[in-house]
């Protein structure tokens, strides 16, 4: 009897433990030189590990190669000190190095280089014209760069073990994975959101501002423009494929209220518009649904607005809200080009994941090494693919430099061009990171198998989260199903969940062909969708307004 009770208790505890994503291993078959440098005669090289830990925790070290280092977050420093203490004790007690010590050595090395990389990337936020043209050239070049000979003898693709770069997602959790990750990070959304304005943001090219929860605990990034639908879907698909991601959510008309606390530099809707115009050259006017001061009527409908009586507010036709939870500390890039990370299959195979969603902006800046606080001062390293919104149909313009995303007609029906003995990837990307260049047929086949696990129901549910109007959403569903089938065909993978699609799909509304023969024909409800699904002028040309 006691044994039965103990077994039940163990099972309950085990279920609880597995509810949180496990860290996985960072070790590679061959340790990178930077990790080997931290070992001396099979013991910790204390001088070098301390140098790294000191660098990551000493707030008086302010620069790297003349660039200001980012602010060190308390939780991050705490985590580094925990790791360092384990190494120190191993050194003090003459322990021979084991796998767990190596895991720590990998981790502090990653953080060290990622932190320095962040200093360089932060200093290079604004791209020069020359750099913009280079991105355009790379994108052109990438269309000819990724072709793969189909091997005569196809090897079985080995299973991948979990790591901070990728986790296996069970079939039953594919759709839920995004929410599971969000829950672990304590990202909580509501149907009607109230966000307090907390400052302007200057990174990236899409207009955005910083916001705070009503309890001041969690930060949000509030975005407008052509990525508000695409980022939502791209992140959910990447999560289902096993990657950690940021957490963007779509909010439709009047579903989000941005409140301006009086002590902020931007105090009302007009000042917000002026600031966004100055920083991003985008006129928010077309995205605003209502604005004014919080009065009794508003409070009657939403009681949580009561403490803000008299404050200015603004609401929107549509926007995206991305979580910046307190539990997640962002360090720098995931270092795809360093520390032998091009050996990692999940990173190499991400090339096909990007291609599946048609992502264009694959720069290192759009990856993020993080620590996730799992509670009780337990921190986990996790690699994030962020900013996946430059996808689902991208039109790039060299002169004047501009681009537009979410153009459903630009989103092709196929990912691969299938030839007799080779396959050619048709997606254009603006940064050919090392792992993508190193990716081989088996790597992509491994990803193709993961994509094949997405069934029609899963895709439909994910698309429903994006807030796309019905005809656009349906056309995207057909195109994604087609692209998925094309990928499986390219790798001769049997489809366990065939999804039917129609390349000649029509959508008629009030007697008008909105979609004809698989092509969007009408600038659908332009007033409600100011970024437009047809207009090719993007953020740099104010979406054609």
């Amino acid at each position: 009897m006691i044994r039965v009770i103990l077994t039940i208790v163990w099972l309950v505890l085990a279920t609880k433990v597995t509810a949180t994503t496990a860290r996985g291993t960072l070790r590679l078959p061959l340790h990178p030189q930077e990790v080997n440098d931290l070992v001396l005669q099979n013991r910790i090289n204390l001088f070098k590990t301390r140098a790294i830990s000191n660098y990551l925790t000493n707030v008086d070290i302010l620069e790297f190669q003349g660039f200001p280092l980012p602010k060190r977050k308390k939780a991050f420093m705490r985590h580094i000190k925990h790791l360092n203490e384990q190494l120190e004790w191993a050194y003090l007690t003459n322990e021979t190095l084991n796998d767990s010590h190596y895991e720590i050595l990998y981790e502090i090395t990653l953080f060290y280089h990622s932190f320095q990389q962040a200093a360089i990337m932060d200093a290079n936020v604004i791209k020069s014209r020359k750099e913009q043209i280079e991105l355009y050239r790379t994108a052109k070049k990438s269309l000819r760069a990724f072709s793969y000979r189909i091997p005569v003898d196809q090897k079985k693709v080995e299973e991948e073990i979990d790591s901070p770069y990728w986790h296996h997602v069970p079939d039953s959790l594919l759709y839920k994975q995004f929410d599971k990750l969000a829950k672990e990070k304590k990202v909580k959304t509501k149907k009607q959101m109230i966000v307090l304005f907390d400052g302007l943001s200057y990174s990236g090219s899409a207009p955005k501002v910083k916001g705070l929860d009503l309890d001041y605990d969690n930060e949000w990034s509030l975005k407008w423009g052509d990525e508000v639908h695409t980022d939502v879907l791209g992140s959910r698909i990447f999560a289902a494929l096993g990657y950690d991601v940021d957490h963007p959510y779509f909010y439709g008309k009047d579903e989000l209220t941005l409140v301006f606390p009086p002590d902020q530099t931007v105090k009302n809707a007009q000042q917000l518009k002026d600031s966004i115009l100055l920083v991003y050259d985008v006129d928010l006017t077309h995205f605003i649904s209502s604005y004014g001061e919080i009065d009794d009527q508003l409070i009657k409908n939403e009681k949580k607005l009561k403490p803000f009586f008299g404050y200015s507010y603004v609401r929107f036709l549509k926007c995206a809200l991305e979580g910046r939870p307190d539990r997640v500390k962002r360090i720098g890039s995931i270092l795809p080009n360093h520390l032998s990370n091009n050996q990692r299959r999940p990173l190499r195979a991400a090339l096909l994941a990007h291609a599946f969603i048609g992502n264009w902006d694959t720069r290192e800046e759009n990856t993020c090494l993080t620590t996730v606080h799992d509670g009780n001062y337990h921190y986990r390293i996790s690699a994030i693919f962020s900013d996946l919104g430059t996808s689902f149909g991208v039109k790039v313009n060299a002169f004047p430099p501009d681009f537009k995303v979410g153009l459903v007609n630009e989103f092709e029906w196929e990912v691969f061009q299938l030839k007799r003995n080779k396959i050619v990837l048709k997606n254009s990307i603006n940064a050919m990171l090392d792992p993508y260049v190193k990716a081989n047929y088996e790597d992509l086949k491994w990803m193709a198998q993961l994509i094949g696990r997405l069934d029609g129901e899963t895709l439909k549910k994910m698309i429903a989260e994006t807030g796309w109007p019905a005809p656009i959403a349906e056309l995207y569903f057909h195109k994604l199903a087609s692209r998925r089938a094309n990928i499986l065909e390219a790798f001769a993978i049997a489809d366990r969940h065939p999804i039917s699609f129609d390349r000649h799909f029509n959508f008629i509304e009030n007697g008008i062909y909105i979609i004809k023969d698989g092509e969007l024909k009408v600038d659908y409800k332009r007033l409600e969708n100011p970024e437009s699904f047809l207009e090719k002028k993007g953020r740099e040309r104010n979406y054609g307004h």
Partner: protein
Amino acid sequence: MGIRFLFVLFLFWTGIHSFSQGIETQRKYGFEQGTGFSSFIDKGGEINGFSLFHHSDLTYYDLYFDTPNFDLAEQGYSLRMRKKEDGEGGYAYVFQLKSEMETANGVRMEVEETELDFYLLLHKEVKIDLATFLDSLFNKMQLVKEKGTSEIYQSYLDALAAWIDFKAGAPIVPFQKLHFLMSDLFSIEGIKKLRPVLIGQSVRSRSHIYLNAENSLQKTGEILSNKTVESETPEFFKTNSKACWLFESSLDESVFYPLFQSSLKSVQLSEFEVENKFPMPEKSLVLMNEFEAHLKVEYGLFNTLNSKYLQSILAFRE
């Protein structure tokens, strides 16, 4: 593009330069026994429109470190390990480096290591975490009669000496800061010379100092309201929403014992400290000056600058 770049650059620059870390604004006062000041703090009440709410008495245990030449005291710093009641039935442990106050308006540098429970050391050949080790040390202090005799703490002092010797180059905030501030004196070899020099305990009576709406209007011409975020607002101000939190005060009654040869066995100190909590510097400065003036008239308080550590060391070394 040019204007946009300059605008971003300006905001980035101002962002960096407005950032500060580890600085607090406080004023310290001494007072003579028998003025009734301790009793006033205990009871709470009002002094010329400033209301005082005494909300807790907390006990602190301190272990101060310095070099054999008292270099830290000479340079105007104190380094201590502290065990303190957290007001919620538990204890917190910190390792702090503080600078002496240079002016009466009190801007002090303070950095600290807040988690001592994952630092391990060997005490009597047993692996023990630093927080538990401090528990044991301070318990010992309370149990023994001759609290200022270093021999009774010898095994503890040896364990700490070994810990400091090993950890001098480790990423521990006070060591990092010492090395940054005085790299000649506190190279890794210099840090290794640090040893415990004082042990003691304090009882801290903490109070909120606030203005009610009527007094606020009278003193400032407006009804001031709390500006702190909810998570940092004390319970008292959540239930008394019209009370505006100005300052936090603490009255410390302390006793310290030397861990080096001294003709004095112990030093007793009384100190009153006021820390600003109102985030509008110009207003709070005027109000703090007014509050201070009333305290001086009513209870004979006088400004002091020296920390408890410096006062004790000066007394023990005389």
